[in-house]
């Protein structure tokens, strides 16, 4: 049993999943809803621009980017204020223009800027982390058709790691849902 499987996998290249081209953005919603309702979880829609409402059709959860922004933003602001307090009142106290050592009104601008910097870093790096980027190599890039995803084509991909994955079953389902071109992607 094990032997046969091994020989098969060495003969046949491993499958990453399937890529299906969808004719229009209207159909894309339908396809995603169909996959979602059939119990698929490891599938994705690929579009040249963000299509709103697709997350509902795909059953995705809210993005966690705001949390990263909140935490890093507040952290940045706190760090900015602490730095100024420590430098001005602790590390080397100097009285300047008769102002108190801890001149908080004068420290607000930098506190604010540091908060924004933290928040922006949270947004940008939070996005990269959550979107699993950078990832320069991906099996999908092997498909020539997929090059048009950044131009004017819409795709749905289903990964083989999906628990519901079955090569023939999934392909048929996609075809039933109206996919035009279906391509098996090798890992």
């Amino acid at each position, binding site marked *: 049993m094990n032997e046969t499987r091994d020989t098969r996998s060495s003969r046949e290249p491993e499958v990453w999943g399937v890529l299906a081209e969808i004719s229009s953005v209207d159909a894309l919603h339908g396809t995603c809803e169909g996959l979602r309702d059939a119990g698929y979880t490891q599938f994705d829609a690929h579009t040249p621009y963000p299509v*709103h409402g697709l997350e509902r059709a795909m059953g995705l959860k809210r993005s966690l980017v*705001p949390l990263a922004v*909140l935490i890093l933003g507040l952290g940045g602001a706190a760090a900015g204020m602490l730095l100024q307090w420590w430098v001005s009142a602790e590390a080397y106290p100097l009285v300047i223009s*008769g102002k108190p050592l801890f001149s908080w*009104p*004068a420290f*607000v601008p930098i506190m604010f800027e540091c908060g924004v910097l933290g928040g922006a870093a949270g947004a940008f790096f939070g996005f990269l982390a959550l979107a699993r980027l950078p990832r320069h190599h991906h099996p999908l890039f092997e498909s020539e058709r997929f090059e048009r995803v950044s131009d004017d084509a819409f795709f749905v991909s289903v990964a083989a790691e999906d628990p519901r994955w079955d090569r023939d079953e999934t392909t048929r389902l996609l075809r039933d849902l109206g996919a035009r071109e279906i391509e098996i992607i090798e890992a």
Partner: protein
Amino acid sequence: MATAPTTLDSDQARLPEKGVWKLLPTVGMVTGVVFLLVAGFLAQGGPERFFHSYLVSWVFFLSLALGGLFFVLLQHLTRAGWSVVVRRVAEDVAGTLPFLALLFVPLIPGIHSLYHWSHEEAVAEDPLLAHKAPWLDEGRFLAAAVLCLGLWSLLAWWYRRESRRQDESGEIEITERLQRWSALAMIVYGVTQSVAAFDWLMSLDAHWYSTIYGVYFFSGSTVGILALLIGLALILERQGALRGLVTFEHYHDLGKLLFGFVVFWAYIAFSQFMLIWYAAIPEETLWYARRWEQGWRPYSIALAVIHFGIPFFFLLFRDVKRRRATLALSAIWLLVAHYLDVYWLVMPALLESPGFHLQDLLTFVGVGALFVGVLARLLRRHPVVPLGDPRLAESLAFENV
């Protein structure tokens, strides 16, 4: 298409004929007059206290109405579609301006109690006041007040009347006309509201000056109107009017604007404070010395926390702006904060440290009841949604993306 008035259930667009709303105009009027008369004749705390309290109450409600005018003009200026369903409510709030203008009259006998510069003997011995005498002059003061109040009343009346005419006719030309004049009207508004803020509030401290003062007053009044609009929409929805028309998408947008202006207020307030604190020029710091160093210090700190700190962290969250309960809380909270702000602008001119007085309550209820009465009357008289507005359909279908 879209020229035909959108068909809406009349219950959705109108306040119920009976019930509280029918009584409110009369009750409001009577209550208001009674309270004001009591406050006036009680003369407790002397005329100075009465007039200062009256000024706080009147400016508070006036700033809301003025904010309403700004909101209406802004929607026309930007050709906004999303806000059409709540614009009539703002028009009605602004519609109280002619009436609030009348309530300026009781202040005329109070000029001497309120404004130090109006005393000839004070001017005679104060070179600074003598220098300012051409501006800080009773005749000029009254003329400016008449002009400002007159222009606002005219604008508010005209914008509301035209919008109501559109309810029946659905004429697109009306919107075009309102839009065309909105730019000029906005300039008139910007200049007059600054003059008014300088005259009625800044000159309480005749020596003091700050170029940003007009912007500060504007930021506060905009926070006030946005809070009031959210509150009124929630109340009207409860009463059946606006139900199904105002959605959480509209509340969410109003909430975002409210959040934005809370931050804007803080930005302006901080800029003014920090610059004066930093430069430490005596004739400028006197205003803050009173509010920051002496008896008003705890009040000032509380104001910063209540008007900015707490609402900032509260309104930051998306869900807060999309739930009735949290929205209602924010609206009430910020209206209170705005009142505290107006109080803080006026009262330190009279008092060494904050002290509540019966007159504050009497005048607040007095002016407030009159304001509510007039507003209820305006709201009842015609649909609470601009039914003929060509962009109503867009507004109804509006979704945040």
